[in-house]
């Protein structure tokens, strides 16, 4: 279980996250939705202890992210959106390296690696060096690295981005399996159909705050829309989304 209480983060004068609170239960897929720059990634980085909150706190499996960082890291697997690989190491070596850093080794680790290679359809490139891997292949390996220590809590930041249809389906099946296995999953994505299909509950974040939360069906009903996407636009505001898109375009241009 992941319990977030009034989490806030300020970088110099910029308030990336203002005040976020939610609880993601075991056996539940909790979706975090929001436009670019809403504060999703900063929130996930605080949960994974990479960034320390300015205010508030959170518990992962009952461990405090401020004071019990190592325990939090051990009980959490995180798939980072922009994560890369070491170009001279193979897929298997990547998984083994991260597994070792989690204190795993021996036959147990090798079996886990083989299971992940099979589950994520990485057999073809299991012993190939990462140099020249496609984006989809990189995502699969990084996902394997997040799961190698079999964590009870999983944070997935855009897990299907850059994946082909077959791999996307495979990842969605894995997320579904996590749920049935009783893991707590936090999913951050832009794909509304993915959220509707996978998430039990969602929170919509904008400018560092949660504007709305509930099950996808509850949000659709509350805003009287046909889909979650329409409800999302309604909540954020079309103008705000347009402004965000323009700001994003300007950022890329500069």
């Amino acid at each position, binding site marked *: 279980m992941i319990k977030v209480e009034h989490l806030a983060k300020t970088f110099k004068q910029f308030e990336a996250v203002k005040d976020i609170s939610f609880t993601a239960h075991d056996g539940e897929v909790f979706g975090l939705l929001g436009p670019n720059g809403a504060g999703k990634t900063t929130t996930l980085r605080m949960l994974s202890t*990479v960034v320390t909150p300015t205010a508030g706190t959170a518990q992962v499996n009952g461990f405090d992210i401020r004071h019990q*960082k190592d325990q939090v*890291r051990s009980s959490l697997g*995180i798939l*980072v959106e922009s994560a890369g690989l070491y170009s001279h190491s193979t897929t298997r070596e990547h998984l083994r390296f991260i597994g070792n*850093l989690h204190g795993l080794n021996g036959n147990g680790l090798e079996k886990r690696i083989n299971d992940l290679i099979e589950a994520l359809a990485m057999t073809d490139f299991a012993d190939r*060096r990462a140099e020249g891997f496609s984006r989809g292949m990189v995502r699969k390996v990084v996902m394997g690295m997040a799961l190698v220590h079999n964590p009870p809590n999983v944070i997935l930041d855009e897990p299907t981005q850059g994946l082909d249809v077959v791999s996307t389906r495979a990842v969605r099946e894995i997320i579904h399996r996590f749920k049935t296995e009783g893991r707590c999953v936090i999913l951050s994505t832009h794909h509304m159909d993915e959220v509707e299909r996978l998430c039990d509950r969602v929170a919509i974040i904008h400018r560092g705050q949660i504007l709305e939360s509930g099950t996808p069906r509850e949000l659709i009903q509350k805003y009287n829309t046909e889909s979650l996407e329409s409800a999302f636009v309604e909540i954020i505001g079309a103008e705000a989304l347009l402004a965000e898109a323009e700001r994003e375009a300007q950022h890329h241009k500069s």
Partner: protein
Amino acid sequence: MMRPWDVYRIVFRKEFRELLRDRRSLFWLFAPPIILPGIALCAGIFIGTQAIRIASEGFPILVENAEEAPELVERFATEDSLVLVDANTPEDAVLVVTIPEDFQERLANNETTNINLTSRNNSLITFFGRTVVRGVIDEYNEALLNQRLESQNLTREWLTPIQIGERTEKSDEAVASNGEGGGRNIVATIFLPLAVTSWLLGGGMGLVLDSTVGEKERQTIENLLVTPASRIGIVMGKMTVIFIASMAVMSLWLIEGVLLNALGSVGPEINGTQHISTAETLELLLESGSDVIGLIAALIVMVVPFTVMLNALVMAWCAYAANYREANLFMALVQLGLPASVLLTIFSLPPDLANPVYGIPFLGTIVGIRDLFSENLSTAGLLICFVTGILYAMAAIAFAAWMFGREWSLTRGLQ
């Protein structure tokens, strides 16, 4: 919970494997110490064999007005390395020696006369030919001078009323002294301190860059940070690989420097011998290197902590830098500043410095290496250099680990 030692082993193994597979990094690390001296050696061998081949055949020269200086022409003719070309085929000569028409007359009047040497081109062969011709003329000149002095009942000492004798004083307590005084080869004195910092100019810095700021550029750092691995274990694992690579590169430079030093000291002996076999040459080199073990031991004592300190400081900066561009800016300053400050230290600081100077960070080791080679470094100075070097290295490692554990430094550059 993972112990730092376990993390260290895991990170070291992974980093070392990556390095061994990274051909580009290996090339830039080892190419300068292997290829540069190799190229110089090949060039030397090529030029030497060419010169020996032509010298054995004889450099072709033409003497104009040969009848004016029969004695000199006779000397040219008996010189094995020269061949006199017939006046009908002047184009075969690499050098034309022109004897003036009043040559004999001016010599008879105890006057000075001019012989003109006209080179066909500026090639190396012409240069060697000119050197041989000048040698023959110089010998003849000496003989004439002796004749003139004898005719006046004078000796050669009469020409040099004052003679200069030179020697360099060395410390009585000098470490790794060769016991002969005079210090070692000046080339080695400059070469070796530069070799200590040479890893920065080669691929060593690229290695530090790749293992620290490279993690940010590749976006692999977050995968590492979300594990419960200890930061000190990660830093030490990465640093050990960098240290091994930089020591390997520096060792190559040092071996070349020591060889240069040995060659420099036996060079005159080899030159002064008419015929010397390979075995005799090796024996001479080994004899000259008998004091080298102490020298190398003293060097290791100074260089190891110094290298660790430099590696750790560069690593600390790279842990802070957001990307390669930021890291390279600092590296460019180091690349320019380090050799400059090494040379400045070697030449600007006076000899016979007080021992505490060897305890000054960075400067102390550079001065220590300089004084080691000029045989002015005492055992106390070496000890100060070593102890403070260890302390600075430990402080630098702690600083690098601290930088590696800071959120504000590690999250710079995260997307």
